[in-house]
Every structure is written in structure tokens, then in C-alpha cells.
């Protein structure tokens, strides 16, 4: 009898707990999103983190951005300025602002260094901060003041530095004077508006601004946001809750409340998704590719899994100071010896396409008219023979002095996908007589020292993230090679030096004509594929895992997050 009582009590407790668990059907007006990182700050201009963009883009909008078709569009502005519509005008720069060309020039084009541009924008007439204060040109002037102050802690000053003057026409219209002419002049994606009526007092002492900004001291202040939602709860390291913003001028969002909760461990993230504790895992900051692939196989009937190839470019940097890799024939042999298509098909089920250059195939400037390297071990062998590397007794090639053809391949330890690719490449290259020694390091050491200071002896496998039509100045221009002299600034980690590449980069940046620019892009991609400073591997795909009832989330493939269109998200 006593045992029966205990059993009944246990069952009753279980039922009570079960009844308290929220069901999936409940709360379709609420959306709980899981992701693996917490934003360090909500200030739009301090720190550049995908986690911050993901949350902030629900509550804040840039003037311009790239849409899901990778076209530049206005978000906070009314119309993009162009030379044709008269809102963009070329102007002569004053003598003190003219910068000398960085390269000698090979006659590809004549880079324009003496012209600037004026750009006129009009703010959305109904744009209003969440506390009812209209968004005006006063906010524009204040943001520019903060953005160009080196003491303010603003992460990316480049755009703010280029702006030499802002003329205010009225409360909603202003003209920027920009001292550098580039083809993407109309895109001011990094000009992220701050509310002058709140933040001006916090900026009184610029060096203290990064600690006093209301985005950190008072993140639930409605006056900080003007997007479809505003932050109503902010618990550092745990979660952020957002509710509909009554002053939003655009389409009314579907969900009344959105909670973004941070669960760093992806196994726990999966358990939370399956148990209904969270509804959706952010593709931008959620599962790793292999985890999503396994998840799709197990739970594909309950969830939609989309793999969106994007701009994250996996490749192997080759240290061109290595005397063996300095020989182009050896670099080309590496490409012919690697079966990248097999890697894409067998490891990634074709969902992460083979990369042939640094330009994503989704980008309009991508071209097929470049040298390609299909798997051809015979060609690889012939190239190595020609370079003086003959097959040795154990199958590994040796040169005339008896030196073995051995390279050290490094990547981030613990990254299962990369470690798998390493092993496949090691096996494939061994078949053409190249010995690969794998030496992996923790990401912190690898990126913080080995790559940054170019301490890898031969090969470093990692990824670059870029943006649509991103000019590869930081990774390919000879002025961007990290050295001790420049305190290891720059990201040209291979040490690639090519006068034509430098010239093409300078030319692309200032070529307005799309067709002429496309031709320049074709040339630099062809040069890249010919010179091969890196071994291109594949373009990474972000896995998005949706419950079947969630619609309207459209992965972009670029670095701007899906939440810029949060008002389109709906429950079916």
C-alpha cells in the first residue's frame, strides 16, 4: 500500500510537470531563437559581431544594405544616389586631399585619385525612434561626429573618415562629401545611426563613450531603436527579449515577442530545439555544417533544413616565401592533385560547392572564364617532374639534392570538417608524391599568431569572410603583407606580390562602368587562378534549421543577417 502511494505520487508529479511544459502549438505569437554567441554590446558602431547584427537588425536599420539578391538597396533612406539620378555628383578634391597612387601602374587603367563625390540621401519620412523622437539629420551629424573620433571606440572608421563634410538641407535630407571615389559609392552600409537625443550626453567625454553608451548602460531604452522591434529585456550572457515597436513605419511584424537565447554548446542547442524550448536556430550562429547534415537525416521530417552557400571561402593559404611553393608549377600541381569535387560530394553531399577563385559564384562579378583545375594526377605529376621533383623510392618525390617534397599543413584543431578535409587531401597528394605533415593548433594560437605573423611554413587552411563585390585589397594587395615592421597589419598572409594584381585592385575600386568593371574582375580572377597564391577549396554553406510552421526567413548568403527582414517572418 505504501509503495503504491509512492508510485501514485511519482506519476502525479510527472503529469504535473508535463502539463506545465509549453506545447509547440502554444505561443505562435512568440518566437524563441537559439544561437551560440552573445553580443558584446548593442551599440551599432562599437564591435563588429555577427551576434550583435543578428539581434540589432530587428530593432535598427542601416541606411543601405545588400538584399537577398545581393543588390544594394535603401532601408533607412528613400532613394539610392546615383550619377544618373543626380543625387551623386563627382567633384574635384582639394589639393591636400589628393592621395598619390600606391602602385607604379602597368597601364591597365588610370586610377582616379583627384576626384571625390557628393551623395544626397533622404531619411524615410516616418522614421521615428521608439520613444517618439523623429529620426533626423541631427542624428546623422551626431553619428558622423562619433564615427570619425578615434577615441570613441567605433570599430570601423573607414567610411566616417572618408566623409569630409555633411551639408544639411532639412530635417530629413543631407549631402555627404566623400573624399574617395569608389564604384560602390552609394553604399553606406556601415553608417549606423545613433540617437543624438540620448547619446550626445554620453559622448561628452569621447574616451569614455564606449563605457557610457546607453546601448550598454540602458539597453531597454525605447529611444535607442527605430526598427520593427525594440529590446525590452537584456540579460548579459543569457538572453535578449524584443517586442514590437509601436513607432515602426514599415509592415507590421507577425510575432509579438521574440526572445533570442544563447546556448553555446551545439548539442544542448539541438536538445533545446527538439524539446521545443527554442523554436528556431539562427543559421548565422547555430549548427556547424556536419551537425546540421546529421540533424537533417534524423529529424528532416519535423524540420526544414536549408544549406545556403555564402561568402565564407575555405582555402589553403600557401606561404610564398617557402622556396618550394614559390614555384608556380608546384602550386598548380597541388590543385591538379586534389580531387576537390570528390571532397564536395562525399564529405558535404554537394552542398558546399568547389571554389575556383576568391569570388563567390553567387556574386554577379564571378566568371567561368578562368583557368580551372579538375582532378588530374597525371598533369600534377608532369608539372612536378618539370619542377625537378622526381618520384623517390618510397613514392615521395625528391629533388636533385635529395630533398623530399614535404609540406606542413596547419589548421584549427578541433574543427572536425577541416580535419577531415586535411586527411583526404593528405591521401590524395600522397598519390602524386607529395608528403603532407599535419600540424594543427588551437584557433587562438593559429589565428592569433601563426597566420597573423605568417609563421606557418607552407600551408594554412582557414576561411575568409567577404561581402558582395568585395575588392580583395586586404588579402591580395602587396601593401597588405603583414610584417614585423608594420606590426603585422594586413591580411595578405601568403605574401603575394604582383604588380598587375595591385593595379587591378586599384582600378576596380574606381571603375563606375559595370561592364568595364566586370572585365577587370575577370582579369583579376584569371590572374588569381593562374598564380594560385592559395589552394581554393569550397564555399561554406550556413545551415538554417526551421520548424515547418515558420515562413519568411530568407537566408542571404552574405554577411548581412536575415533579421533585416524580420517583419516578413510569419507562423504558418
Amino acid at each position, binding site marked *: 500500500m505504501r509503495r503504491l502511494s509512492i508510485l501514485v505520487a511519482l506519476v502525479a508529479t510527472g503529469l504535473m510537470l508535463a502539463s506545465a511544459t509549453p506545447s509547440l502549438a502554444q505561443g505562435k505569437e512568440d518566437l524563441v531563437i537559439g544561437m551560440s554567441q552573445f553580443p558584446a554590446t548593442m551599440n551599432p558602431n562599437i564591435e563588429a559581431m555577427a551576434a550583435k547584427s543578428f539581434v540589432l537588425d530587428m530593432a535598427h536599420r542601416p541606411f543601405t544594405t545588400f538584399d537577398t539578391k545581393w543588390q544594394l538597396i535603401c532601408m533607412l533612406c528613400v532613394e539610392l544616389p546615383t550619377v544618373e539620378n543626380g543625387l551623386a555628383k563627382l567633384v574635384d578634391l582639394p589639393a591636400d586631399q589628393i592621395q598619390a597612387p600606391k602602385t607604379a601602374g602597368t597601364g591597365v587603367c588610370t586610377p582616379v585619385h583627384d576626384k571625390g563625390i557628393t551623395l544626397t540621401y533622404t531619411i524615410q519620412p516616418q522614421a521615428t525612434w521608439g520613444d517618439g523622437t523623429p529620426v533626423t539629420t541631427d542624428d546623422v551629424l551626431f553619428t558622423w561626429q562619433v564615427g570619425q573620433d578615434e577615441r570613441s571606440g567605433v570599430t570601423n572608421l573607414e567610411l566616417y573618415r572618408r566623409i569630409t563634410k555633411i551639408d544639411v538641407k532639412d530635417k530629413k535630407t543631407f549631402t555627404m562629401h566623400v573624399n574617395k571615389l569608389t564604384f560602390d559609392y552609394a553604399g553606406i552600409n556601415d553608417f549606423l545611426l545613433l540617437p543624438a537625443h540620448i547619446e550626445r550626453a554620453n559622448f561628452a567625454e569621447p574616451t569614455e563613450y564606449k563605457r557610457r553608451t546607453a546601448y550598454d548602460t540602458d539597453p531597454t531604452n525605447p529611444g535607442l531603436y527605430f526598427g520593427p522591434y525594440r529590446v525590452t529585456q537584456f540579460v548579459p550572457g543569457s538572453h535578449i527579449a524584443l517586442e514590437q515597436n509601436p513607432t515602426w513605419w514599415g509592415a507590421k511584424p507577425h510575432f509579438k515577442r521574440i526572445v533570442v537565447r544563447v*546556448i553555446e554548446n551545439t548539442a544542448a542547442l539541438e536538445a533545446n530545439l527538439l524539446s521545443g524550448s527554442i523554436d528556431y536556430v539562427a543559421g548565422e550562429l547555430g549548427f556547424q555544417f556536419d551537425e546540421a547534415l546529421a540533424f537533417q537525416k534524423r529529424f528532416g521530417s519535423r524540420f526544414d533544413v536549408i544549406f545556403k552557400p555564402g561568402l565564407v571561402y575555405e582555402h589553403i593559404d600557401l606561404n610564398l616565401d617557402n622556396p618550394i611553393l614559390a614555384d608556380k608549377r608546384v602550386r598548380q600541381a597541388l590543385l591538379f592533385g586534389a580531387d576537390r569535387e570528390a571532397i564536395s560530394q562525399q564529405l558535404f553531399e554537394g552542398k558546399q560547392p568547389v571554389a575556383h577563385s576568391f569570388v563567390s559564384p553567387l556574386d554577379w562579378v564571378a566568371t567561368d572564364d578562368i583557368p580551372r583545375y579538375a582532378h588530374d594526377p597525371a598533369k600534377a605529376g608532369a608539372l612536378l617532374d618539370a619542377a625537378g621533383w622526381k618520384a623517390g623510392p618510397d613514392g615521395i618525390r625528391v629533388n636533385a639534392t635529395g630533398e623530399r617534397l614535404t609540406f606542413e599543413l596547419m589548421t584549427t584543431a578541433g574543427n572536425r570538417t577541416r580535419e577531415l578535409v586535411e586527411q583526404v587531401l593528405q591521401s590524395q597528394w600522397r598519390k602524386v608524391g607529395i608528403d603532407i605533415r599535419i600540424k594543427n593548433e588551437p584557433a587562438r594560437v593559429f589565428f592569433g599568431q601563426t597566420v597573423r605573423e605568417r609563421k606557418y611554413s607552407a600551408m594554412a587552411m582557414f576561411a575568409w569572410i567577404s561581402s558582395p563585390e568585395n575588392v580583395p585589397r586586404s588579402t591580395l594587395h602587396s601593401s597588405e603583407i603583414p610584417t614585423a615592421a608594420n606590426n603585422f597589419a594586413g591580411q595578405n598572409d601568403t605574401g603575394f606580390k604582383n604588380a598587375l594584381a595591385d593595379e587591378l585592385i586599384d582600378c576596380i575600386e574606381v571603375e563606375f562602368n559595370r561592364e568595364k568593371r566586370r572585365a577587370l574582375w575577370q582579369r583579376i580572377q584569371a590572374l588569381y587562378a593562374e598564380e594560385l597564391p592559395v589552394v581554393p577549396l569550397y564555399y561554406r554553406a550556413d545551415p538554417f534549421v526551421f520548424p515547418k510552421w515558420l515562413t519568411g526567413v530568407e537566408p542571404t548568403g552574405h554577411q548581412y543577417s536575415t533579421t533585416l527582414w524580420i517583419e516578413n517572418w510569419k507562423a504558418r
Partner: protein
Amino acid sequence: MTRFAVTRAIEGLIVLLVMSFVVYGLIGLMPGDPIDLMIASNPKLTSADAQRLRALYGLDRPILERYLNWLTAALQGDFGYSRAFARPVLELIGPRLVNTLVLMVASLTVALIVGLAAGLYAALHPRSLIDDLIGYLSFISISTPTFWLALLLMMLFSVVLGVLPASGMPVGADTGLGERLRHLILPVATLSLASAGGYTRYMRAAMIETLGQDFIRTARAKGASEMRVVLRHGLRNALIPVITVIALDFGALFSGALITETMFAYPGMGKAIYDAIMANDFNLALVTLLFATLTTLVGNFAADLGYAWLDPRISLAAGRAGT
């Protein structure tokens, strides 16, 4: 007693000072800095911007200079600013401390009740079937990785049975006491199960040894009841070595739940340490780790007091065991 407390306090301060230098130095020796993390996520960040930011955050200065600056400010009550959470460190760790305290007190209580009771029962019935069963369960508890146990409980109770939430803290509209307690069940169960096995083994061994002592035989010969022999004479003496173990675990109150807190996304001190180290957040990492050191020192001090209370032969005045 006062002399003992003052001596231990001075020793503790020296340990904290040394630890602060060691921890700061170790974090500083790690390659990479927060600016590298920014570069990795922002393709448009120029090299000039990276250099400017390093200077702005003081990351370009020698590690010793940075440490001395931190120490000077800390001695004036300013423990710095968390770069990863954009808040003063003390403001940040306050709520986390409370969360960890709730989690750890609950799990320690459950683990002690289960562990000590099971250990006591096993010691009183040595080599019985129940003793063997308790032994097996204890070894399973000791050898099961916390990470795996957390995941297992999560999958069973949250995914398969659907009776408990998979996270440790409610974030929805209902964050009342009942909901908070419900969310605590799995993290508490994980931590309790992980440590109860150890306590069981210590308790069993200590109790068996104590019950074999002469004074137990004397107590029985004097006609004391078995209950009194076990609880008054046996348990009190057996608890002395067990208290040492509990005191050592006391430090883990604020840092040892790192894995469990991370798995259950529970915003406590363990997760703060994890977040701080992953984000290269010097100030937060330093203060949280120093706090863990401090709690270990306090735990040891409390254990010393506990010895004296349990065994009058132990004298604190002389700083050594008396006879």
C-alpha cells in the same frame, strides 16, 4: 582563535595576490587578442583600424604594465570593465553569483544527503547486496562525464519524455518561482549525481574505519544504543575526513559548474569564466578566477573550524593538532 583567523587571512591575501599575477600573466601569454576576433568577423576592418583599437583598449602595452594598472585600480575598488559584456565586472558578476549560489547550494545539499546517507547505509551493511549496488552506482556516478550526463538527462526528460525544460533558466513570459524551480531540476540533478558518488565512497570508507575503533567498542560496552553509537560517536568522527573533501569542493561552488552551466545555458559564475576566457576578456576572467580562489580559501578555513568543532582534540590556537 583570533590569531589563527588573522594568520589565515594574511596568507589568503598573499595567495590572492600571487594568483592575480599568475592568472593575468597566463591570459596575457595566450596568442591573439579581442581585436583578432573582430577582424575575423568583419572583412572591412582595416589594418589601421586594428592598430588603433589595440591602442585604444591598451592591448599594445606590455603585460606587466597592464597588470600593474589593473592592480592599482583594483586596490581602489575598480575591478575593471568587461569587454565581452560591456559592463563593469562587479556589476556583471553580482547576479551570476546569486545564480551559482542557488544552483550549487541546491545540488550540494542533494548530493550530501544522497551521498552521506548511502555511504552510511553501505558502511553499516558492508559486503551486502545493497552495499554492492551502492558501490556500483557510486562508481558510475564518479566515472560519468558531466557533459554526457547533462546531455543524457536533457534528451531523456526534455526531448523524449518532454516533462522538463532543457535549459536552466526560464526566459519566456513566465519567469516566476515555480518556473525557475522547474528549470533548476536538471542542472541540479546533473551536479548532484556527478558528486554524490564520491561522497558515498568517502563516507563509507571513513565510517567503516571509525566503527572499528576502540572507542566505538567502549561506547557499546557502556550500553549506548546502536543509534547513539552510530550517530553520536561514529558519524561525528567519520565526518572529519569527509569535511576535507567537502571543503575542497567548496571552491568549485563558484567555478566547478562550468560545464553544467554551459550545457544548460545557465548564467552563473562557471559560464562567466568560460565566456571570459573564450572572448579574451582579461578583467572578467581575472575577477571570476580570483573569486574561485577566494572561495577555496574560505572553504579550507571553514573546514579547519569544522575539525575543531567535531573533534575537541584539534586545537586552532596552536595551528596544529593537539593531543
